[in-house]
Structures are given as structure tokens and as C-alpha cells.
């Protein structure tokens, strides 16, 4: 279906607690950020989907504000095949590494999607 207000569609789905993205019905591309046409093939056939929330840190930069604690900004590749900017909230900023496996969480007030680091046997902060 054609999405005429993709940002609204994104916010509505985010408010329901999912991590939304679009899937092109013509070429199969995972599309993020949400759009009115597919940037891979030009089709307007984009269906909403949501991610299982698992991904891998592709890059990380730690910001050091003068008057606040450091925090990481990351690019995460979701397993469904799209990349988002986000942050990691459960480990000290300087411990986030490229290649870390991470899980998404929707923060209702942001609204935004943040990540926690997966350890070998599941969730939890890395020592």
C-alpha cells in the first residue's frame, strides 16, 4: 500500500511499542527511514513491518559533553537488513564495541528506540 504520511505511520507504530520499518513489495528491500517510495527500486508498494529488535553495532562514537556524563551514539544494523542511529543504555559508554550484539527497546517518552548489549548467554550488562 502507498504510505502518504510515513513519519506519522512510524510514530504511531512506535507508540505501540514496536520497532517499525517498511518492506518493499516489489524488490523486497528493507526500508528505513520510512518513506513514500522505495529508495532501492522506486516502487510505492511499501508494507509496514516490525523488527524482532536484534542487531549488531556497526559503528560507535562516544560523546563527552563538558557538563554531563559521556554517552554513546551508535549505528546498529538490524537483522532484518536496515540500519538505524541509536544509543546503548546499559553499559558504560566507553565499553560499547563495534560488533556487539544488541537488543532494541522502545522508550515511550522519547519516543525513541534504544539498545542494550546481549551477552553470550542472553541479556545483561557486560562485566
Amino acid at each position, binding site marked *: 500500500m502507498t504510505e502518504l504520511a510515513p513519519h506519522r505511520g512510524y510514530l504511531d507504530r512506535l507508540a505501540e511499542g514496536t520497532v517499525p520499518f517498511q518492506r518493499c513489495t516489489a524488490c523486497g528491500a528493507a526500508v528505513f527511514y520510512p518513506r513514500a517510495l522505495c529508495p532501492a527500486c522506486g516502487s510505492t508498494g511499501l508494507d509496514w513491518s516490525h523488527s524482532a529488535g536484534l542487531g549488531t553495532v556497526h559503528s560507535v562514537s562516544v560523546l563527552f559533553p563538558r557538563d554531563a556524563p559521556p554517552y554513546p551514539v551508535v549505528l546498529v544494523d538490524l537483522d532484518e537488513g536496515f540500519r538505524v542511529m541509536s544509543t546503548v543504555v546499559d553499559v558504560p559508554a566507553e565499553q560499547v564495541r*563495534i560488533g556487539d550484539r544488541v537488543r532494541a527497546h522502545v522508550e515511550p517518552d522519547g519516543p525513541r528506540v534504544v539498545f542494550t548489549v546481549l551477552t553470550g548467554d542472553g541479556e545483561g550488562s557486560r562485566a
Partner: protein
Amino acid sequence: MTGGLRGAAAVVGVAESDLGEVGPDRYAIDLAAQAAAEALGEAGLTTRDVDGLFCAIAGRGMAPLDVAEYLGVRPRYTDGTMVGGSSFVSHLHHAALAIAAGACEVALIVYGSTARSDSGRGRLAMGPPELPSYEAAYRPRMPITGYALAAARHMHEYGTTRADLAEVAVAARRWAMLNPKAFARDPLTVEDVLAARVVSSPLSTLDCCLVTDGGGAVVVTSAARARDLPRPPVYLLGAGEAHRHRSISQMPDLTVTAATESSERAYAMAGVGPADIDVVQLYDAFTINTVMFLEDLGFCAKGEGGAFVSGGRIAPGGDLPVNTNGGGLSYCHPGMYGIFTIIEATRQLRGEAGDRQRPGAELALAHGNGGQFSSQVTAILGTERTL
């Protein structure tokens, strides 16, 4: 069309405005006008001769109208292409196309900014965002965090080190120490860069460009008319443009910029390759820019940029002079630096670069960058002998 563009147009006048910090009473457009007057003056031309206007000013959506009115220029061809700091190299390409097509004969490319003075008087250069953002909620500090994410990935994939990046800052400073117009001329060491405060890892304050005021202007005309003007013409031999993203999270590969495409187009038009280039002026907003652009412009292989810039290779006395004015890192950076790559390339090819002159320079590459490694525009300029 582009087959006939090589050597069809030439730069015949260049100038900066006052640079550094010009104080609270002067505006971006004043600096643009100061530079325009001087560039036209050295070209032996006046605003009355200008029939093509190319300009961009941050935050001014109708900059060509502002500038034309202020200067009293009545253009028959106008181009306000705004692709960030690469805009003016893009303008150079567009001006040559317009001149070759007969749409104008004397093109003025012009820029001004009071980015440094603005910070002290609460003037805001940018309005509110006009598009939804899928990045802002995570508080990246832009543009530095975008470049930092690319740098982190480059270090991860290729083993590039912070010391490699620091070599870029040191080389720029050593060039700036030879340029009386440069803003930062104190000696700088790799250790200084590594010890500086990290803003957005891996980049420290000394991996970042300056924030200065400044304007610039470039006058371009047909090759035929250029030969009747006072200064030796500097010919546009090739130009190429490319962009594939705006937001850093949409960049297809964080370690490869669209400069691979823009330079390929420029080299093909000019009929030269990287090995032929005598002097390189590229947009060094951050130290990682120089490393990645030297790779993407073909001066070394992908991943070898860190090693390439080490040991003073791009500094005074090195094999490849890069950013001989001191660059955005040490000479000036008013926000959209691209025009200064053309100005310095022109001076090198005229043999006017003083203590920083590359003897016998015949071919120069000027490369502009806009956004966050987004818009890439490459120009190759040459002397009469290279035609």
C-alpha cells in the same frame, strides 16, 4: 557536452575576504562582496561584466537574490545550488557548463560567512529542521559525530590509528605556518593532538576544523576571453559530482565516499590520473576527511590512507602537497570551505603561493565535501601548458 568542456572555461580571478574574526558589525554578505570586488579587480573586470551568478550562504534560501541585489549584478544565469561545503566546486562545474553553452560569459562564484562572530551575538545561522529526523533523539553532535562514526569504522576495518589522524592535523599546521593568512600558526605535534579533549570519539578538538569568519570569490570566464585578462588563466580541465546520502545513518559504506565517483568523472574529462596531480586541495573538515579522500581520489588504496599520510608525506617537503594553505584545520573554516580549495589551487598554478609554493605546479585537484561525507565534487585545474 562534457566532451567539449575540458579547457572551455578558466578561473581568472580569486580572492578571500577578511578572514578569522571580523567582529559583530559585518555580515556574511559584506564579506562575500569584499571578496567579489577583489576577485573581479584582479581579473580586470567589474560587477557590470558579471552575467552569471553562483552562490550559497548558510541559512539563506534565496542567497543569489540577496547577493545580486547587494552587488548590483544583473545575471542572465543564476545557480544557487546548495550542497553544503562542496557547493562552490559544484558552482565551478556548473559555471563552466553554462559558459560552454553560451548561457553566460562571466561567472562570479561567491560566498560569505560570519560563523565565528555569530556565536558571540546570538545570531543563528540555521532555522528549525524542516524534515523529520531519525537521528536527533540520540543526540549526535553534528557534524562531528557523523565523521566520528566513519572514523571509528575506518579504524576498525583498516587499523587506522588516532596517531595517523593526528598526522593530518600536524601537516595542515605546518602548511599554515607558511601562510600569513592562516588563523592557527602555532607549532603543533602529534602528541598535542592525541592529548586534546575528545569531543566525539575518536575525534578530539584538534581533529576538527576551525570556526572562523571568511568569504571567498572566484571569477570564471571562457578560455577565449580569459587570454585577454591580466592573470594567467587557470583552466578547468575536468569536473565531477556525486552524492548518495544526506544522513550518516544512510551512508551506504561508512568508509567509502562518493568521491570515488566524482573523481572518476573529473579524471576522465581531464584525461589525467592521480599520479599526474602536483598539488591537492581537499575539504578537511576533520582529520579523517583527508585520509578517506586521499583513498577515494585514488592517491592510495582503500584502507591505506592512514599509512599514506604518515611520516610527513602530505606536509611541506613531502611527496604530495595537500592543503597547502593550511586547510580547514588551520587556515580558515567559515562553515562551507569548498571555495577555498579553488582559490588555493589557482594560486599554486599561477605560482603565487609564496613560501608554500609547489615549484612548477601545473595540475591541481580541488575537492569539495558537503553534509556528512555526503556531496562530493572534484575539479581538476591546469595551466595553459596542460591544455
